[in-house]
């Protein structure tokens, strides 16, 4: 019995220890909250004092170094937090003036030294502001940070390089992204769309030999985003041979966005693609790229087993064929038991209500 007593006492003590440990964590969390609250208060006080000076600087001719000299190093991040929205909003000369506050003053070396530190939090914050201010001086350090084992450091550095429009870093970003399982297509697109359309040319050169489906798909999405017409031929070749639904759908959307008429014939063969998503997307594109010769094929799609395809067939007919509404109306109300006609009635009904 004594042995049991010891076991139970040990169990109770272990849980007590766990409880104490938990409350140590509670204290830590509360202290963190207090520190955070104190910093926010200090930040608000800083804004109240410096807001006018910053506006005067943006309106006047003051040397940025003169302004920054008046601010203590420990307050640099307060200033940057204040300027964050301005960085995102301002363009042209106003932006250049604002970025001079970082790029021509001691703030830049301060941020670069933060970037070289070992703390992911400091690195991420520094990368964010260096990217916003387009600090070219930070480029090399940022490129090295792409190799970091920490996913957030990789993402923040990649974002900063994209904002710097460092086109040469694109393939380093792709290469290093593969190391992290949860860096998705979304994350990469969010980053790469920060580049200007200069990114398209190297992506096009790469696309011609690229086998990776994710990179193919991202490249085509970016071509659509920047309406990069020159990629039309290459994307058409990829689409014709691709087995991947996402690549095919992205390609169709791209052709539609740049009105690439040469793709119309290839789209005709995709009308019978096994995936309904592809068939529906083809119909949407044909509303832009097709002509009257497609009419019968589109009518046939009204009997597709998938609703999306039927629906888009009606919409495309209406957009593509002049005076088709009357014909569709006759079909819709003349075949009350027909499923295709039911969809047509629904589309007509929707249109009437909207008009």
């Amino acid at each position: 019995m004594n042995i049991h007593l010891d076991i139970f006492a040990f169990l109770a003590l272990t849980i007590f220890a766990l409880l104490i440990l938990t409350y140590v964590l509670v204290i830590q969390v509360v202290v963190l909250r207090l520190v955070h609250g104190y910093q926010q208060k200090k930040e608000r006080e800083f804004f109240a004092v410096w807001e006018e000076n910053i506006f005067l600087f943006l309106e006047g001719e003051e040397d940025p170094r003169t302004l920054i000299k008046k601010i203590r190093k420990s307050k640099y991040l307060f200033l940057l937090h204040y300027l964050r929205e301005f960085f995102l909003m301002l363009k042209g000369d106003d932006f250049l003036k604002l970025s001079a506050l970082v790029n021509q003053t001691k703030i830049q070396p301060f941020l670069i030294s933060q970037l070289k530190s070992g703390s992911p939090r400091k690195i991420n914050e520094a990368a964010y502001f260096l990217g916003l201010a387009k600090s070219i001086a930070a480029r090399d350090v940022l490129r090295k940070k792409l190799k970091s084992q920490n996913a957030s450091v990789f993402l923040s550095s990649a974002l900063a390089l994209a904002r710097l429009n460092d086109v040469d870093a694109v393939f380093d970003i792709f290469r290093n992204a593969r190391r992290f399982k949860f860096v998705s297509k979304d994350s990469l697109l969010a980053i790469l769309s920060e580049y200007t359309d200069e990114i398209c040319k190297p992506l096009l050169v790469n696309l011609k030999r690229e086998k990776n489906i994710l990179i193919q798909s991202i490249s085509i999405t970016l071509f659509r985003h920047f309406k990069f017409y020159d990629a039309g031929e290459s994307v058409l070749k990829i689409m014709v041979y691709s087995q991947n639904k996402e690549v095919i759908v992205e390609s169709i959307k791209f052709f539609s966005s740049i009105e690439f008429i040469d793709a119309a014939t290839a789209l005709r063969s995709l009308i019978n693609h096994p995936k309904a998503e592809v068939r529906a997307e083809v119909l949407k594109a044909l509303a832009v790229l097709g002509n009257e010769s497609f009419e019968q094929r589109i009518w046939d799609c009204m009997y597709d087993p998938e609703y999306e395809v039927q629906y888009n067939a009606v919409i495309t007919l209406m957009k593509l064929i002049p005076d088709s509404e009357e014909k569709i109306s006759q079909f819709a109300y003349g075949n009350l038991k027909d499923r295709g006609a039911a969809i047509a009635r629904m589309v007509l009904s929707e249109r009437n209500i909207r008009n």
Partner: protein
Amino acid sequence: MNVIKYIVFGFNSLLLFYFLLVCSIYIILNVIAFFKMIKYNSTIKYLDLKRVFKLTNYKPISVIVPAYNEENGIVESIKSLLQLEYPDFQLIVVNDGSKDSTLQKLFENFSIRQVSFTPFYKLKSQPIRSVFMSSEYPNLIVIDKVNGGKADAINAGVNLAKSPLITVIDADSVLERDCLLKIVRPFMEDENVIAVGGTIRIANGCNILHGNILEVGLAKSWLARFQVVEYLRAFLFGRNGFDVLNGILIISGAFSCFSRDALIKIDGYREGCIGEDMEIIVRMHRKLRRENPKLRITFIPDPVCWTEAPETFAVLRSQRMRWQKGTVDSILLHKKLFMNPAYGWIGMLVFPYFALFEMIGPIIEIFGYFFFIVSFSLGFVTVSFAVAFLTTAILYGVVLSVLSVILEELSFQRYPKLSHLLTLMAAAFLENFGYRQITTWWRFRGMVEYFTGKRHWGQMEKKGFAKK
């Protein structure tokens, strides 16, 4: 006498082991959830979702809102839902044969007119009387149908849904504006995802205007505060933890998103089911994942939906008894999954966990407390054992509740004031002394009622947010 003493001691030791096991499983889930949240937050932090959705091949969504006698809040609720941020969604409000003026309110406020609409699918539901569209809001559709209950109303909505993704929400839920952008991401990242749930939070005490949360706050009543901690524990590390094993067995009916094809394939929601939100997920595992084990039912930890918690004992009791009946119903309907290796982790770990701890748990706990008190009073257990038992049954629970508040603070930090944090810490401590035992008792009663044939839903009164 000695033999009896040993038997009683052995039985008490088993009960102690039960409490130890259940809390230890939660501790493990907590650790798993912590690392998952760190990963999730570091990814989402750099995503400007609105920007991404302009670029990507997003999927349209049909949002289905079943409404029964919702005249007080329906207008506010729909106005708020129409403001959701998403590039392409339709809102389908299903008036499930309301006896009040719900439909009339929709006529008066949204310029709806009858249209010709053909159901695309044939899920079982009560007859649809008419379908309406709004000339003011092109993405708003109203279905008026014969009353058939929530599951039936959702099925009717699915039959008319145009989009490949279906989101089901409660008419009285308050959604975050970007909730659709967040809930859709798992579907876009992985074609195998068939259902996604999000974190539900308690809205009592929050400042809500026109269906939008203006300021997050805490309720004045301790009953609601205890529920805040309970929800944090259930969502932040319960579901997050199970998600790592692809072991989500329940997605809250207040906010869930499904692939339409998956819903059609399993014939939609089961009519007349008490806990339809759990039942449908278990059925998805049973029918769809058996065919294709790669399919995923997943969970995003973002707080996306806020709901009103009961603030009186009577309403809370009714809710908890109903939940327990739902759990029992779903588990018994799909008992084939129990310890069935064909279903992988679900069959061998998650389903048995739910059966043992969520279904039978209240019986063991209530019986355990009773047996312990009796045997301690009769001197059958030692003081050392008594301390160990109470420490495990109560203090281990305190550890878990406090850890859930810490996890919230380290991840989303949605409660802005220090006083909120301290109040939650206090609630996390106090809820283990009385509240938890009372809810266990209600769950126990729910089970008894289920097995004695009282399987009706019961009433759930809500104050509503409309006037706040």
